[in-house]
């Protein structure tokens, strides 16, 4: 399903933002750019946590701008606090199906399948406090899978993880995205995350999406204002 932002306007303190872009259907788009440029705001607008001043959010050509967060075909994963500490891993995932935690046998089956899918099948009884940071994020991914919404937003989901673990998580995410045809938008501070996992990359600065292109094109581009300054030497050392 495509995700289109149609002149979506927002104001935070002194910064005016206008987002106008089409995120490709079934694509994995990374969003990079300087801190304070509006990357998280972009996701919050799509998820319904912020109300825009003007403009529309269109998902598969349906206008969802006025819908509350739970009625949008969207799941979101945050950097922290994706899980409730007093609920078990299984319950945390089950919340994605039923807020009352009462599941039919078939639904319970889906929870188990999602847990197995993200490699948590042995840990279903554990409390989040007994898990590592990477495992806690896997719980969030499993919940997003059982919710089965076509758009998945991630706000620096793996920023607290080490390089190897981050790569594992990106591979997991990429595999699920392709298997289910999800439209993924992931904010990240690591250009190498974009290169590793994203089909497309958007460069966002000062409340504007300056460019959204296939990842290889964007990183090779010389015509994107601000991008060279943002990346600095990084391009020379990595590419």
């Amino acid at each position: 399903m495509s995700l289109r932002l149609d002149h979506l306007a927002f104001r935070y303190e002194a910064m005016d933002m206008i987002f106008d872009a089409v995120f490709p259907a079934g694509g994995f788009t990374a969003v990079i750019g300087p801190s304070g440029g509006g990357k998280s705001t972009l996701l919050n607008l799509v998820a319904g946590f912020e109300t825009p001043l003007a403009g529309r959010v269109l998902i598969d050509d349906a206008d969802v701008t006025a819908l509350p967060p739970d009625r949008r075909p969207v799941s979101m994963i945050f950097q922290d606090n994706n899980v409730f500490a007093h609920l078990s891993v299984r319950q945390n995932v089950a919340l994605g199906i039923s807020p009352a935690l009462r599941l039919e046998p078939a639904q319970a089956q889906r929870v188990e399948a999602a847990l197995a899918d993200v490699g948590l099948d042995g840990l279903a009884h554990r409390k989040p406090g007994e898990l590592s940071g990477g495992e806690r994020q896997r719980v969030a991914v499993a919940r997003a899978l059982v919710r089965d919404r076509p758009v998945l937003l991630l706000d620096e989901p793996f920023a607290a993880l080490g390089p190897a673990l981050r790569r594992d998580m990106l591979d997991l995410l990429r595999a699920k995205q392709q298997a289910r045809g999800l439209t993924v938008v992931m904010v990240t501070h690591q250009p190498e995350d974009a290169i590793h996992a994203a089909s497309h990359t958007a460069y966002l600065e000062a409340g504007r999406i300056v460019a959204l292109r296939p990842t290889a094109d964007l990183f090779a581009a010389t015509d994107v204002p601000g991008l060279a300054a943002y990346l600095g030497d990084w391009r020379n050392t990595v590419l």
Partner: protein
Amino acid sequence: MAERHNTVIAYQPSRAPALAALAFLGLALTAGFLPVLAMGIRQGLAGLDPYILRVLSFTLLQAGLSTALSLAIGLPLARALARRRVFPGRFLLLRLLNLPLALPSIVVIIGLVEVYGAGGWLGGLFALYGLQGILLAHVFFNVPLAARLVLADLERIPEENWKLAAQLGLGPWALWRIVEWPRVRGGMASAALLIFLLCASSFAVVLTLGGGPRATTLEVAIYQSLRADFDPQRAAMLALVQFALCAVLALLAQRWGGLVPDVPMLRASARRFDGRSGAARVLDAGLILLVLLLLLPPLLALAASGLQHIALTAPLLRAMLTSLLLGAASAGLAFLLVWPLAMLAVRGALWRRVAALAVLASWIVPPAALATGWFISLIAYAGPLWLSALLVIAMNAMMALPFVARVLMPALGRSAEVHDRLCLGLGIGGWNRLRVVEFPAVRRAAGLALVMALILSLGDLTAISLFGTQDFVTLPALIYRQMGSYRFDDAVGTALVLGLVVLALSALAERWGET
């Protein structure tokens, strides 16, 4: 292992002042408890006569009902405030919630009498003298306390949880069960015990609004046994029961995590996405209105009527001077007791435990029960004014101790963390260290601690009632006396003066507390 690692920093403040502080506290507590215990044991179970059992059951009844009512209103109020982050007057309402606990109880009681007493604005709505009046006053004090404690817990819930809840479509009930309740239940249990303890040892409210022997609590019955009936035997038995009750409550509260209330800061709470429905709005607005109706009339009545009757007479000025001198001395003593203990407590596990125990002991020991022991110990020397003054100062210092510790301990802890290694390296120690490093570093915290102790002591009615005399009168004692001698107008004027002095000091404390 972890503890050993933490004490690698080897700066050791002097132990002598800390031992002196401990000796003082030990003496005060033993002199309070041992005579009571001895007298109680001599009487045995026979001493537990029907009167004492009746007083005990009334104490438990009113404290239980007060706690239940305070939580029943305070909890939904906290939820309403947590999910209404922006409405006109929210900031003022939060400030208003700080008032009841800052004001001396006798001042609030005067306001309640102005509104609900015979001839008051709402006279006849409640039977003010007796159980209803006691509950009303306790609810007035403790709804704001409960709301603030629960609100602090609710505001610590991270924003992601609200977003997640909104995305998962959790309804009000699921939201409460999954997001809010797990976060507030611990704080609620300790708030409940704290409020129960405060109400079980409440003195001024029961003394002024209690209806004689039918509606009296252990603390007030002790006072009456000592000062009106001169029956130390009965006082000792009551005190023993009161000690036991408070010890049980304190042990329970310790298990639930701390007794001294955590004062929440006014800060921006996380954005929430619930409570958008019309029913929720009406419910929250109704709750806020209810609490305004509870809190505002007595305060407004006190101000309106007090302004008409304010008169700076000689007895009032004399009482104010007495209050300020006693308060300054109590605050100074509390400070001197806490400082040396805190200096050691922030640097070692053993002293940390010792200091925690000292704070707990001075927090739970009910003043009138403690006073009974002092009374019995000093019966032979009764009379001189200086002795009465010393006893009042000592008791108020002990009551203030937990609050002083709560402010001073973290400040000294931060200073130790930042300065210890530097000072060791530069060879700065002893008095020089205090003068050059500690005093400037914790100046604000020390000022805040002193003012808080002063405020507590200015509002005290317990110690002054037990040890005061005809010529030894503080402002709260003067108010009580004026109430008792049918000079209610004078009492209102005096109460307004005391209230204003305390408010001015709180404003000062708040400014120091901000940074």
